[in-house]
């Protein structure tokens, strides 16, 4: 029974109908195929493919490097967001626009650029290898690429929250005798923690499934430097649909879990803000 509030505005049936139709065609049918196909493979084969050693190694790399990248972005993303919002310096507006680069730049371009940058003969790779650090074709390189990818998520989620901070609250803390550092830690930080966590979670979610920017720098040696999406690709090329689907479903479930976590975080922080 469709019980909706009658609205004077026209077009409900048309727009909703078209939206649902389009959505089904482009999103739901393919996703249903994923589930149907997974079901058709049988649980045993599915499970075997999902936890095969090669797949497990790939999960470790994808999730681990994503976590490392998210952690780096947590620190530096906060720094960048703070600096962009609170301070004035020449070129600030250009830098601000630039933060979206990882979001706007095609992943393949980022991939080859980062690889060339960190290769042993690269602009950064050379000084680093002089220090004994090999970046390209190692998990460290994967981490660097995933840091690049996740940066805008942390910065862009934090910026509006920092902008919305009431300067009077900080002034009150100062008038009560708190030093700047104490004010920052006790007053400012707690206020931005929900947004911070959300941004980090988003960066993590994006990094876990990232392919284009990583596949060049990773080296792609099975069991060592192979990311999960590549496992899917390889199996697909070998017509091992079952194997590919298994890993895909695992990653999809992980993404949905993270998505659910992010939503819960946002709902929680919205409720907190409403209470205040």
């Amino acid at each position: 029974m469709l019980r909706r509030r009658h609205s004077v505005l026209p077009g409900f049936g048309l727009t909703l109908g078209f939206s649902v139709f389009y959505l089904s065609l482009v999103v739901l049918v393919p996703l249903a195929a994923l589930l149907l196909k997974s079901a058709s493979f049988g649980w045993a084969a599915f499970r075997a493919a999902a936890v095969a050693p090669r797949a497990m190694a790939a999960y470790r790399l994808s999730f681990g490097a994503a976590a490392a990248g998210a952690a780096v972005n947590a620190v530096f993303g906060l720094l960048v967001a703070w600096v962009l919002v609170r301070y004035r310096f020449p070129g600030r507006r250009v830098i601000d626009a630039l933060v979206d680069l990882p979001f706007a730049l095609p992943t393949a371009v980022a991939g080859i650029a980062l690889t060339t940058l960190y290769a042993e003969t690269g602009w950064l790779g050379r000084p680093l290898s002089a220090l004994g650090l090999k970046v390209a074709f190692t998990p460290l390189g994967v981490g660097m690429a995933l840091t690049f990818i996740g940066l805008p998520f942390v910065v862009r989620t934090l910026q509006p929250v920092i902008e919305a901070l009431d300067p009077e609250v900080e002034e009150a803390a100062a008038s009560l005798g708190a030093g700047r550092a104490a004010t920052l830690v006790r007053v400012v930080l707690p206020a931005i923690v929900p947004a911070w966590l959300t941004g980090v979670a988003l960066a993590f979610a994006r990094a876990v499934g990232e392919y284009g920017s990583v596949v060049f720098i990773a080296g792609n040696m099975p069991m060592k430097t192979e990311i999960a999406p590549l496992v899917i690709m390889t199996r697909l090329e070998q017509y091992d649909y079952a194997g590919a689907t298994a890993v895909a479903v695992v990653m999809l479930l992980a993404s949905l879990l993270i998505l659910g976590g992010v939503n819960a975080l946002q709902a929680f922080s919205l409720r907190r803000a409403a209470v205040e």
Partner: protein
Amino acid sequence: MARPTDEPRAVKALLIVGALGFLGIFLVLPLVLVFAQALEKGLSAYLAAVRERDALSALRLTLLTAAVAVPANLLFGLAASWAIARFDFPGRSLLLTLIDLPFAVSPVISGVIFVLVFGRLGLLGPWLQAHQWKVVFAVPGIVLATLFVTFPFVARELIPVMQAVGREEEEAAVLLGASGFQLFRRVTLPNVKWGLLYGVILCNARAMGEFGAVSVVSGHVRGLTNTLPLHVEVLYNEYQFQAAFAVASLLALLAIVTLAAKSLVEWRESSGEGRAPSAAGQRERTA
């Protein structure tokens, strides 16, 4: 804008340097490198690489894909945001979640699901083979995968803008006798135009730059089923670095134009009418 509660100047300077240093290493260097490598062998080599036959086919395919995906998703975005922002109905939150879905899914998985439907061993595989239709490893597959991946962009930008603008002007227009299309054209569109433009810009950037999903469904056939990003990969894997970066520089230019357009839209937004669009990558949930 000095405030009594500012950090000491030395600390500020240190933080600024730290932030800029981080951004310089992680963002600026790679971007500069693309252009440096592209022009390594001089301008004529650059132009030759860009004008090469397969590069041009890749460019054509990329433009074609965007030309299909962007208008289609624009239409969807308009329809969906009207339904969601202006009406209340059971399943509204579900619809919102589904719209956000492609964002949560890895690009490779986005490609995989289309292979599962249209691939040789997929759901519709045998049927397609019988009719001699190729979807996967052909252009239609690439367009479909791109559609899936860029699907949410316009809707996600429009929905918060429409909600912020509010429905009163539209109610007033209906009472004054406007029909559905008149209402939309004269009242709604002018109020949401910046959010709309912003969504289209982002959608286009992603449509042209998508790699992972397209890589899965493409046959990697040179000159036929390679988009620009795929062509970059091909050149790079063949160690034709300068050519790879030359083609990549086109995409980098696209990214820079996208960023510039985004800034322009935001600036027009804040200095004029309407509402600021949500920041790139920020997931604004509408309850």
